[in-house]
């Protein structure tokens, strides 16, 4: 009899489709008025001997049914969850909600890289006014009025004695006037020259540097600038120093690095020479040191300067400087 019951139960269990059916089945067999409960109740009418045998049998059956119910319920539960999750599926190929970060201007990026390299080398950062006195921009730097060297820097004038600074060198003078050596700093900032074409902008950015102490030499100038170029453009870039002229340095040098576009093979950008001019530099002219009250016998120093626009144009292969100041977002968002 119990075998029949077991078979019937198993048939019913296997045909279960939902958790609700499973609950019903459980009630049908194990509920207060369930088949098994009824059987257990009916045991009391049996003799003690029969009760012992039938009791064990019925208890085993009960335990079997309970286990089967549980097993089935758990199966149904996971099947049902699976179904629900499947129904909840989204199209994961749709785009995410756009969160766009802004883009740093390429000039800021270059400027930041340059400043970082020098501050890592222990250079401080100094600033000064963009509208500057003629005497700081020129005279203190050994560029008197009516000197042909003024032609090197086409100047915007505000008045006879006030100009838009043509380089950040006046910052050097202002700092030296206030502090005694040793000095080691760079001066980044905007500068202005009366010139506009594909490679010149009337406003551009420079980073200039100065180091003054006892026994600073041309060798040190070379050491620091080669280290900078190798940090900025790569450790294998060739670098050369050639004589040049700046009124505020003596000796003066222009520094070329191997063309990064053609790997020194010669191209349109480097005019076939394989070299790109990247920095101007020199040993601070003793007259400049004397102008700020330093003893040029005791102290020597080097100064250097570079154009951030030029580096940026080279670095990103930008062929027109004006793009840098149009602020077209199609341009800005490339960086």
């Amino acid at each position, binding site marked *: 009899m119990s075998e029949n019951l077991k078979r019937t139960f198993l048939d019913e269990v296997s045909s279960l489709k939902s958790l609700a059916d499973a609950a019903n089945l459980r009630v049908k067999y194990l509920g207060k008025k369930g088949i098994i409960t009824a059987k257990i109740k009916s045991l009391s009418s049996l003799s003690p001997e029969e009760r012992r045998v039938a009791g064990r049998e019925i208890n085993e059956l009960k335990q079997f049914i309970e286990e089967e119910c549980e097993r089935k319920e758990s199966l149904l539960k996971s099947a049902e969850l699976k179904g629900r999750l499947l129904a909840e599926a989204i199209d994961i190929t749709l785009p995410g909600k756009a969160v766009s970060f802004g883009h740093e201007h390429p000039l800021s990026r270059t400027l930041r890289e340059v400043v970082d390299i020098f501050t890592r080398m222990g250079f401080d950062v100094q600033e000064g006014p963009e509208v500057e006195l003629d005497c700081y921009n020129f005279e203190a730097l050994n560029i008197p009025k009516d000197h042909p060297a003024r032609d090197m820097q086409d100047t915007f004038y505000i008045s006879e004695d006030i100009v838009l600074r043509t380089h950040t060198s006046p910052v050097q003078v202002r700092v030296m006037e206030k502090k005694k050596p040793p000095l080691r700093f760079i001066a980044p900032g905007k500068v202005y020259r009366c010139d506009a074409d594909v490679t010149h902008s009337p406003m551009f950015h420079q980073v200039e540097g100065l180091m003054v102490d006892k026994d600073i030499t041309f060798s040190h100038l070379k*050491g620091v600038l080669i280290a900078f170029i190798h940090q900025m453009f790569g450790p294998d870039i060739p670098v050369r120093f*050639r004589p040049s*002229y700046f009124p505020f340095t003596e000796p003066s040098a222009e520094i070329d690095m191997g063309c990064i576009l053609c790997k020194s093979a010669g191209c349109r950008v480097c005019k076939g020479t394989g070299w790109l001019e990247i920095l101007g530099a020199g040993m601070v002219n003793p007259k400049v040191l004397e102008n700020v009250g330093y003893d040029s016998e005791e102290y020597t120093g080097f100064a250097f300067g570079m154009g951030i626009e030029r580096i940026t144009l080279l670095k990103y292969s930008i062929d027109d400087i004006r793009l840098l100041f149009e602020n077209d977002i199609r341009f800005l968002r490339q960086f």
Partner: protein
Amino acid sequence: MRVSFDWLKDFVKVAATPEAVAEKLTMLGLEIEALERIDGDVVLEVNVTPNRPDCLSIMGIARELSAAYGIPLAFPDLNVVSESKELDFNVEILEADLCRRYAGRIVHNLKVGPSPDWMKKRLEKCGIRSINNVVDITNYVLLEFGHPLHAFDLSTIRGHLIRVGTPKVTTGQSNMKFTTLDGSEREVSGETLLIWDAERPIAIAGVMGGSDTEVTEKTVDIFIESAYFEPTSIRRTSKTLGLKTEASYRFERGTDLKALKKALDRAAMLMHEVAGGTLYGKIDIYPKRFYPKQINVRYERIGRLLGVKLSEQEVLDCLQGLGLEIFECNSEGFKVKVPPYRGDIAMEADIIEEVARLYGYDRIPAELPKARLGVDSRKEIVSAREIRHDIRESLLKCGFDEAINLSFMGAYELDLLSIPAEDARRKLVQVRNPLREEDAYMRTTLVPALIRNLIHNLAHGNRELRLFEMAKAFIDIDHNSLPEEKERIAALYYREKTKTLYKDDTPDFFVVKGIGDAMFEGIGISGHSYVRSDEPFLHPGRSANIMIGGSKAGFIGELSPAVIEALDIKAQKPSVIVMEMDLGAIISLSKRDAIYKQLPKYPFVERDTAIIVDARLQAAEIIGHLKDHASGIVEDVSIFDIYQGGNIGVGKKSIAFNVRYRSPEKTLTDQEVEDTHKVLVDYILEKTGGQVRI
């Protein structure tokens, strides 16, 4: 300067290829910018720095090569055979400060005509057009020796006299008119150095001759001038007249006081050879003689400046061939007499540069300096830099692209923004020589540039803009002192409604305001508030001044429709949000020193209430009242809904707010919260005259 390689070889017999010579010159400081092959010759384009006028000549460049290669310089033979007739001709220098030497020669009976081919070709290769043999010879010698000469038609010089002086000194005139040989009549000031005959001016000294005394095809007799004019005087004249010639270019950089005689002789010889003239004796007035500068040079100093120890011999070898006279040599150093063509050498450092140049910059070893550790910058400067960096970063993270604009603007841009006359933004710093009228002033606000950027981007179909810029504004104080330079930060936001997948209806004003608040939070500014702005270019109902610590730090708002219309901005949606702030003020108010507050131990309880109030009542007022009311357990208040219309009466609005209660000492009971909230709501209703929305 264009230099023929063949011509160079007349003076220095280099065996090296033109390419090798070009490389050598570049590494000597005479950068070769281009190399051009013409007619089996090579023309070098030399970039001569302003300190080296001696290298504005074939001879000067040959001298450099001679020094570098150790090959002797071949000088042209200058044995001038002239008729030793007494010259019936006088030269008077009236101002020796402006003209230290004036020499000349007379050539009779020459035939003006075309130059021989060899001369024409050399001139043309060097970029000078052939005119006639007489003019060509002066140009030829100019290129060869770097010394400008001028030839006058002798027959036009009146009174057998040449005078050198300014109008002021010569005739007492303060200014006058003069016609130069290019045919233009020029206004000449009383300070301009002129060449005169007995009656009238005949040339602007060192710049250009006059049309009346020009050599023509009819000329038979000439007077050749070779003089030294003071550089600054020539430069001033050339600048004032806006007249730059091969002659003025060289005179203003400084010419060779001694070699001018050689140049004159060379020209005279060529006049004889090429134009068949008969040479007469010369005249040479030399009131201020040349005395060479003497410079002490110490070996020890060379080592200290260059960082490389050179032997005495190495040093002297470098200087050999430059024409410097070295004397009084001993183990400490030596003295140098500087030749007249090297006006750039004036002190020991200049000689050290010559040594380094000839030794080769590339042979000087590179070495990193040893330096003492230390920090120079003041703490404020460093932290200002950090704050600036953080502000930039927060705007970048919020999706704003960084703009960099030129510092210029036009005054009309302030008119477009209706900036009133008394506004500080009208205190303009004017550029005297702008490249364009639109760039005639230094900007006093960053807004116009961002608007230009907007217009540019819209014109190129870019319909969603988030731009910011950090830069200086320039406010004039008075015209005689430096202006005030104020750091500003500005942003512009424009976004057209586009079909998007995910909706976000936040009004633009509040998008930007939220970003501004985030920025403030990032740098520790919390006490700021917003009040209605009266900026004339903003929508009066949709703009605010940003107040920090009781003063205006900037503004945020929608550009007024009037501005949009005036600028002819073709946008689908006229709402453009701009923001500008005083960055310096923000930096000074930033407080970033955080102090840890203990995390709360007890749970919070929230209550929401909606009240109906007058529609004009501003949110800030309600929040203010909520915060004022000190119950001791209000942790936070926020507005979460504003509603108008429907069953809310006309002129009214519903404001729903949320209050979060928490006690630092215990878990609050419902009753406590209920009681407190009721008191709070009653207080708000009393203050606002509102009623609870049911």
